[in-house]
């Protein structure tokens, strides 16, 4: 990727990772980008770097605009290694004594990645830095989504360098929202559901804080995916909506199956839910990906989980999804459980315990069927589906 000029003197010098398909357990089917930003003013500033293996590509991109050795200041908005991995190479190349601005927690965390070898300049929330014609302001955004996270804001141009917030795992030559259009929203939604959902209360507070500060935002430059320049309000509003966690009248059935009995149950429950007019989707776990499932969880009101009993426990793939979902702390959900079993039948009880720990409102104690559901069993499943659907419809 060649550097892209965003406004005069501000460039995306990041790289495209076309080939990544598994981003720490998040499926990235079309790859992603690691954006890094170069501001050429009286001082030359680099905001964030890229993954370690792309560091030379980053330096080559910068060299198309200015000799990287001319960089005066580096800002690290986020310590995670897809944005800091290139720091040692870049700092070595440009001179390790150059100031590296970061948040207080950024200083601590960067030092725990790379040692105390850099000239760390920890900034306070709201601190400003003049770089010539521009003034940059730093905004601490702890736990959005790491303790070190911060935003950098260019006051004169009203550009927000937002670190991982408002990002999307999207790889393409469409670098801006106006180029890609609404096709970007599913990627932004998936990113929110898998990275930021658990920090929803913090996001709502931050948006409020930004409004109180009267911070105008013309352009949002995240560290992944496209830049929001046509309508940055669109992604901010979407974040507010997603953070409120007011689910749609929608149910999802997440299940796995061994001999297709739990599958038969899942589909009969789906039929029952559909009869009540509630949108429903059965999702077989091993035919999907946990990060896709989480995107569906985001706006679903009912989360129905099914597992066969395997060796007195849950089917492992179901545990995987439950563990993942629990960490992301979805709110305002109705929970239900089901599963086929051979002799002991612990799965439903185990699912209930997990969903109760997530504070879901449970429909009841769940539906168990021994071995293969017969006609009556399938009719019970449809009735169970109707019960779930009615609970969703009557919310």
């Amino acid at each position, binding site marked *: 990727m060649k550097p892209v000029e965003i406004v005069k003197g501000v460039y995306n010098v990041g790289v495209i990772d076309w080939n990544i398909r598994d981003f720490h357990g998040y499926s990235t089917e079309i790859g992603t980008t690691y954006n890094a930003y170069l501001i050429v003013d009286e001082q030359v500033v680099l905001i964030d770097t890229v993954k370690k293996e792309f560091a030379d590509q980053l330096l080559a991109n910068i060299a198309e605009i200015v000799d990287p050795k001319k960089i005066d200041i580096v800002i690290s908005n986020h310590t995670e290694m897809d944005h800091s991995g290139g720091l040692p190479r870049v700092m070595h190349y440009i001179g390790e004594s150059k100031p590296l601005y970061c948040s207080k*927690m950024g200083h601590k965390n960067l030092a725990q990645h790379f040692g105390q070898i850099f000239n760390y300049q920890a900034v306070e929330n709201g601190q400003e830095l003049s770089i010539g014609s521009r003034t940059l302001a730093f905004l*601490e955004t*702890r*736990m959005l989504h790491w*303790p070190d996270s911060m935003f950098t804001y260019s006051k004169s141009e009203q550009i927000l360098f937002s670190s991982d917030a408002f990002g999307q795992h999207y790889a393409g030559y469409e670098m801006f929202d106006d180029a890609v259009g609404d096709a970007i929203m599913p990627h932004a939604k998936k990113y929110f559901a898998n990275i930021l959902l658990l*920090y929803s*209360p*913090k996001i709502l507070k931050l948006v409020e804080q930004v409004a109180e500060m009267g911070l105008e935002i013309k352009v949002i430059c995240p560290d992944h995916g496209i830049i929001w320049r046509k309508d940055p309000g669109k992604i901010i509003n979407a974040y507010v909506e997603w953070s409120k966690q007011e689910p749609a009248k929608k149910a999802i059935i997440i299940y796995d199956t061994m001999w297709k009995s739990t599958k038969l149950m899942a589909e009969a429950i789906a039929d029952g839910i559909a009869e009540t007019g509630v949108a429903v989707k059965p999702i077989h776990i091993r035919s999907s990906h946990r990060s896709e499932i989480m995107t569906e969880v985001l706006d679903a009101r009912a989360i129905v989980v099914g597992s066969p009993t395997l060796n007195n426990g849950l089917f492992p793939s179901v545990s995987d999804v439950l563990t993942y979902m629990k960490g992301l702390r979805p709110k305002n959900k109705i929970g239900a459980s089901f599963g086929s079993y051979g002799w002991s039948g612990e799965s439903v009880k185990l699912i209930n315990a997990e969903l109760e720990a997530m*504070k879901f409102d449970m429909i009841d104690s769940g539906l168990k069927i021994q071995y293969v559901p017969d006609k009556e069993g399938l009719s019970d499943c449809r009735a169970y589906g109707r019960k779930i659907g009615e609970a969703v419809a009557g919310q």
Partner: protein
Amino acid sequence: MDRYVCQICGYVYDPEQGDPDNGVDPGTSFDNVPDDWTCPVCGASKDEFEKE
């Protein structure tokens, strides 16, 4: 009663409000919060908190 701040994420424990979602009743001083309680925002342990 003193308020305590999580040094990892900035969450403030306010004894007047407690943390009822996690079993800490309103009116519980920080000293009386159970030792196995963790920051409701980032999960840091109680010893990561400092007086505001």
